[in-house]
């Protein structure tokens, strides 16, 4: 009795696609991830072109920014998203706040990514004392809640986009270093690394050209998800007064400014809140989509291993 079988794929066709091409294809078809990507792109446009898009200067107290009685104006034709207690235009402030959030987010992701790749890779590749010292250091940083670390440092230093990015970046870097380290360790025993090292290639080059491509997917996914976390952290820090200080607009300090008037002028809090959620939403979806696209083996492995009942 014969059993019908479907045709096998051509091996050559698969090879030609290449890794990134296949990944992009996967990503493209993941509708949810694409939505996230659209959101992220819109946010980036808002942030980059804020000076061009914003109807008013963000920090300027406008002459008709307040009502006759001196209260913030609700959303209307002139001020699309209303004004804040100091008569400043909410829409403009939100757009400039996007700059802050995205800068901190991307900045800390890049710093964290470099730190993690560098330290984790070095530790994994060199082994020995360097390995132990670096990884212990990473563990200590990891055990220390990032908010508390930021609080301690920001209490005494001048808060700025760079400072915050560095602090959050260090937190990420520690986590990523662990991930990169484990992968580097498993890779270093593989033949191609040994071959590279025996051929007098400097260890730095080995790191860059051989190890990095293998850990790149994890790093990309991690950094994307990290942007979401960084945005949240920056908002929280600005909210409690540790992060970006007024008059510079940050979504976090906008909420702080508006919280006392929340019952009468809810838009003061709701709009920045929505902005934060939207940004985190976008980056999280993109990060999840990237993870599914770049490492499809995960759920497939589960599919084979989960023995089902008939």
């Amino acid at each position, binding site marked *: 009795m014969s*059993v019908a*079988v479907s045709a*096998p794929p051509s091996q050559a066709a698969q090879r030609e696609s290449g890794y990134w091409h296949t990944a992009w294809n996967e990503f493209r078809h993941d509708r949810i991830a694409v939505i996230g990507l659209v959101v992220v792109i819109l946010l980036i446009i808002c942030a980059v072109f804020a000076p061009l898009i914003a109807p008013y200067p963000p920090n300027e107290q406008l002459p008709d920014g307040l009502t006759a009685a001196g209260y913030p104006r609700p959303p209307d034709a002139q001020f699309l998203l209303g004004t804040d207690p100091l008569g400043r235009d909410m829409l403009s402030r939100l757009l400039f706040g996007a700059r802050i959030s995205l800068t901190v987010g991307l900045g800390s992701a890049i710093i964290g990514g470099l730190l993690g790749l560098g330290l984790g890779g070095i530790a994994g590749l060199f082994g020995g004392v360097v390995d132990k010292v670096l990884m212990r250091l990473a563990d200590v940083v990891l055990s220390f809640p990032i908010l508390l670390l930021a609080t301690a440092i920001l209490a005494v230093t001048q808060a700025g986009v760079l400072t915050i990015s560095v602090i959050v970046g260090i937190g990420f870097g520690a986590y990523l270093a662990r991930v990169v380290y484990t992968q580097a360790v498993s890779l270093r025993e593989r033949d191609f690394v040994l071959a590279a090292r025996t051929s007098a290639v400097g260890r730095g080059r080995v790191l860059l050209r051989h190890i990095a491509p293998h850990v790149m997917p994890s790093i990309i996914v991690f950094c994307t998800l990290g942007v979401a976390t960084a945005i949240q952290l920056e908002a929280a820090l600005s909210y409690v007064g540790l992060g970006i200080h007024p008059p510079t607009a940050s979504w976090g300090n906008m909420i702080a400014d508006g919280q006392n008037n929340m019952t009468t002028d809810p838009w003061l809090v709701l709009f920045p809140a929505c902005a934060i959620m939207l940004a985190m939403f976008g980056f999280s979806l993109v990060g999840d989509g990237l993870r599914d696209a770049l490492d499809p083996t995960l759920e497939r492995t589960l599919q*084979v291993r989960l023995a089902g*009942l*008939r």
Partner: protein
Amino acid sequence: MNGGLAAGGDDLVVRDLSTIYATSHGQIVAVRDVSVTVAPGEAVGIVGESGCGKTALALALVGLLPRNGRIAAGEVMLGDIDLASAGSKVLRTIRGRRIAIVFQDSMTSLDPVMPIGRQITEGLIEHLGLSRKQARVRAAELLTEVGVPEAGRRLRQFPHQLSGGLRQRAAIAVAIAVNPDVLIADEPTTALDVTIQAQLLDLLERECRQRGMSLILITHDLGVVASVTDRILVMYAGRVVESGTTGVVFADPRHPYTVALLDSMPRLDATLRDRLQAIPGTPPTGYAELAGCPFAPRCGHVMDRCRAEMPALEMVTGGPEGHHAACFADMTTAPRSPA
């Protein structure tokens, strides 16, 4: 209790069984048109390289194929029941109670956070309705029977606290506790030392004879089947290529693959100058639908006919009844390697 009571008297009859796995690269036919009958108390060996479908066959018998696998055709009759088309409720009553499986790696097939004793009593309570106390007593007896000393203490221990050999014995105890009709052992000794292998095989043989259990022994190691089984099936690329009584197949193999397997076994009386005979090439991956005999690319006796036509499993010429092989070549005159 059921110490000496013989197990149920049904044959396990497998007819033209085929299973398919769906993977991202296409479909694999893991088992193709396999038929075998196992009588009560009989020990049947299923032999082949990794990937030949022997484990898929075992899983298919009890409906334990993973989510991407299914039985595509055939029947598995245990008495009146067709396991291949039975619902999950029926299968659950059969599994463990009438057909039990022992897997290769006892470290991963036993629950790491549950004491050994409970893993044995679980089946006793579930299938035989014993009380907890009765089950515990019985579990201790079982452990002693399978050769685990200090059974009382071991009952309370966890799998990682036992050595590999003891652990596999415990796994066997778990499987035979409820006195199943059929015991399937999938590579039970592959992960163990050779000396422990021998002891474990003796144990399996003894338990099966005493209880009237049928044994299906799955392995890639011909040495293992030689001592324990009454009949063997040789599988290649999901098909049975030769079957018959163990003694006859070993003495008079009629399929080139069987010959090659026998020849590749290291022999005690070989000299240093005799080289190990490996079988050149690799088994097919199973994706493509092959025309002709799947062993053709690696066969030393291949003819043109072999590449075009699939040989049927037929009774061999000039051999005893029950000896079947799927080959066009006449292996009776084929040269065997020396000594």
